[in-house]
């Protein structure tokens, strides 16, 4: 081939490649191949650690084996990366058919009309859920997401250490208050054989903060998408932690290597931890020789009625899903929420099943830690609960800001009242920008 011929060939190849690339770009990837002779491919996106990735991948394969016409393409990522990827996928209109929803994004995605309604899909059964349950699942009056698990705010304590050190964690009831917990943690930190502290410094733990607010008659978010708490409410929580920290009842930032400590590192340095009920399942495995137990969050003597609440991790079907794939997607959601077989594979790391029948069935195969979690959630579920609202658009970084403010308070860079005001101002500014 002479040079002229080579140039022509190169140009032709380049143009072909560019044309193909452009065409591919235009075609988009959302929805995947569908409806071809009854075979459906669905994209399923979720987050977690590598154990959860393996378990869910296995469970989704089992689903496809049982339903040979439905193939599932898993899209997994770590929690933060998951949110980043979802945002870029939304911008590119390349959203997975089925996706989990990170808590700060629930109403943001709702505002962006990402969710398809779920109450008209014949393959997704709502029969096991009461009318009241279904009402609490709704977002702005629409049943468009599926809460597939429940977790609640808890205090997790190391029973092995309490027995060895002769400490008694008060039973739930009148003696189980925030003040009694603080006294216990301070006293324990001053005098124990293992030089442990009472707890990690964790005022930025969102679920226990929300429990505190609701007991004061406040809430995290309002129905109309505003911050539901006051500077005083937030300051009272930060103050409780500041007194605990100054009295030596909590680890210092240095001892726990910063905010949001790694449980594998600090688990051996503390007696209790503030957490979500489901965390016991993964966290307890890091200390296999020790036994962990759960208590529901302490209750202030003046707690408002209906302060208890449940947190639901949610999943949804993408609004623009191909109609031919909808029933298959409904089947996948049904498998996730209404079928105990899946839980045998994925276990209960995402919390207690929302479906009351499945929650009951899960007791038969739950591990001791999972049974502990199920028992706590069951009790909270039976309690009187006022409605809870999701984080409004524009508030997605409130937890990051709260962590920063708590860190500044602990380092003496800001005071509790100033920090509380700063956080609320920041939250309000974010909501206003997004409005």
């Amino acid at each position, binding site marked *: 081939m002479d040079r002229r011929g080579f140039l022509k060939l190169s*140009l032709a190849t380049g143009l072909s490649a560019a044309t193909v690339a452009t065409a591919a770009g235009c075609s988009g990837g959302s929805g995947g191949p569908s409806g071809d002779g009854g075979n459906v491919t669905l994209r399923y996106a979720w987050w977690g650690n590598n154990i959860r990735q393996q378990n869910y991948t296995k469970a989704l394969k089992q689903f496809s084996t049982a339903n040979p016409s439905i193939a599932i393409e898993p899209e997994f990522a770590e929690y*933060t990366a998951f949110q980043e990827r979802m945002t870029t996928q939304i911008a590119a209109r390349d959203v997975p058919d089925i996706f989990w929803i990170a808590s700060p994004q629930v109403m943001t995605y709702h505002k962006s009309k990402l969710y398809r309604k779920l109450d008209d899909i014949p393959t997704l059964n709502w029969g096991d859920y009461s009318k009241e349950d279904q009402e609490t699942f709704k977002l702005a009056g629409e049943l468009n997401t599926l809460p597939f698990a429940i977790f609640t705010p808890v205090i997790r304590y190391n029973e092995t250490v309490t027995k060895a050190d002769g400490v008694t964690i008060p039973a739930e009831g009148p003696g189980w208050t925030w003040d009694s917990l603080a006294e216990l943690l301070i006293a324990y930190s001053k005098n124990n054989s293992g030089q442990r502290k009472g707890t990690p410094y964790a005022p930025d733990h969102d679920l226990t903060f929300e429990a505190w607010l609701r007991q004061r008659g406040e809430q995290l978010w309002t129905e109309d998408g505003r911050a539901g708490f006051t500077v005083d409410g937030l300051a009272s929580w930060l103050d409780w932690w500041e007194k605990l920290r100054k009295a030596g009842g909590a680890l*210092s930032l*240095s001892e726990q*290597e910063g905010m*949001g400590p790694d449980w594998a590192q600090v688990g051996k340095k503390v007696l209790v931890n503030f957490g979500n009920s489901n965390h016991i399942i993964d966290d307890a495995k890091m200390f296999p020789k020790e036994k962990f137990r759960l208590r529901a969050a302490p209750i202030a003597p003046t707690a408002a009625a209906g302060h208890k609440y449940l947190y639901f991790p949610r999943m949804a079907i993408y609004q623009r899903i191909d109609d031919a794939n909808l029933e298959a997607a409904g089947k996948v959601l049904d498998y996730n929420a209404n079928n105990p077989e899946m839980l045998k594979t994925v276990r209960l790391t995402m919390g207690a099943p929302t479906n009351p029948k499945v929650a009951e069935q899960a007791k038969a195969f739950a591990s001791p830690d999972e049974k502990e979690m199920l028992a706590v959630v069951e009790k909270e579920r039976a309690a009187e609960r006022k409605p809870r609202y999701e984080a409004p658009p524009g508030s997605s970084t409130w937890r990051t800001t709260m962590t*920063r403010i708590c860190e*500044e308070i602990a380092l003496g860079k800001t005071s509790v009242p100033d920090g509380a005001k700063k956080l609320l101002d920041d939250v309000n500014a*974010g909501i206003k920008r997004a409005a």
Partner: protein
Amino acid sequence: MRSRSANAKVHSHLNRQGRAAHVFLIPWQLGFLLITAVPLFASLYLAFTNYDILNPPEWTGLENFQRMIHDDQFWASVKVTLIYVVVSVPLQLGFALLLALILDRGLSGLAFYRSAFYLPSLLGSSVAIAILWREIFGDDGLINKGLALIGIHGESWLQNPKTALATLIVLNVWTFGSPMVIFLAGLRQIPDELYEAAKVDGAGVWRQFTHVTVPLLTPIIFFNLILQTIGAFQTFTQAHIISGGTGGPANSTLFYTLYVYQQGFVAFDMGYASALAWVLMVAIAVVTALHFLVSKYWVFYGDS
């Protein structure tokens, strides 16, 4: 006529070569256009909008730039970045030059040392560094264990706002391999005759260094200075890994690019993040231009 025909042939040959060059450049040009130019100008537009990625951008004029003036986090990130640039770049270059001078003295096993010293440059932005740094500077780290031996109880260097940035400066200095290799190449270009002449004139080692090595190395120093300064302004990964993306403790490692990332990919405030990115670009351009302006007073090119 013959000459005209020859000229035409040469011209035609050059034209053909030019066309060939353009064809071979197509992949790069496409890449530049799609991956650099379009996003660059798109971000300039977005800098004047309120854009959360999920909804269409909304024109807000200069609002994002005005917002910076009252943004404490912005000023914190500017302060951290400037301290880092001013302290870490000279330290790193000085250390790299010192090592290059030692290696240039004809040590045996030069290739091994060169590779060994270059290795940290490859590791500098890896996750392994976060673990290593925690093992060294953490509450239970090597340094505090060493201090404990002499009765001093040290706190985590990474969680103290007064020392956290210093640990990142140490990390940057430690990754001196890249400028060191460039210095080494520069040192090899200085003719031996100049040192011999200096010796004949009675110059000792220090005078040879200050009157021969440094002047002839100034173009290389300038080159390294520009590269490392721009790199230091854009430092991101080390701070992201070691602070877990927060820029903590108390904003002490909140580098400018980390703040841009937080606004763009955590808060999804892409309009503001674009405005921040453009401010950084302009700042780097100004600093680089100043470097070039000042260079005529201290950079010695052999032909000038």
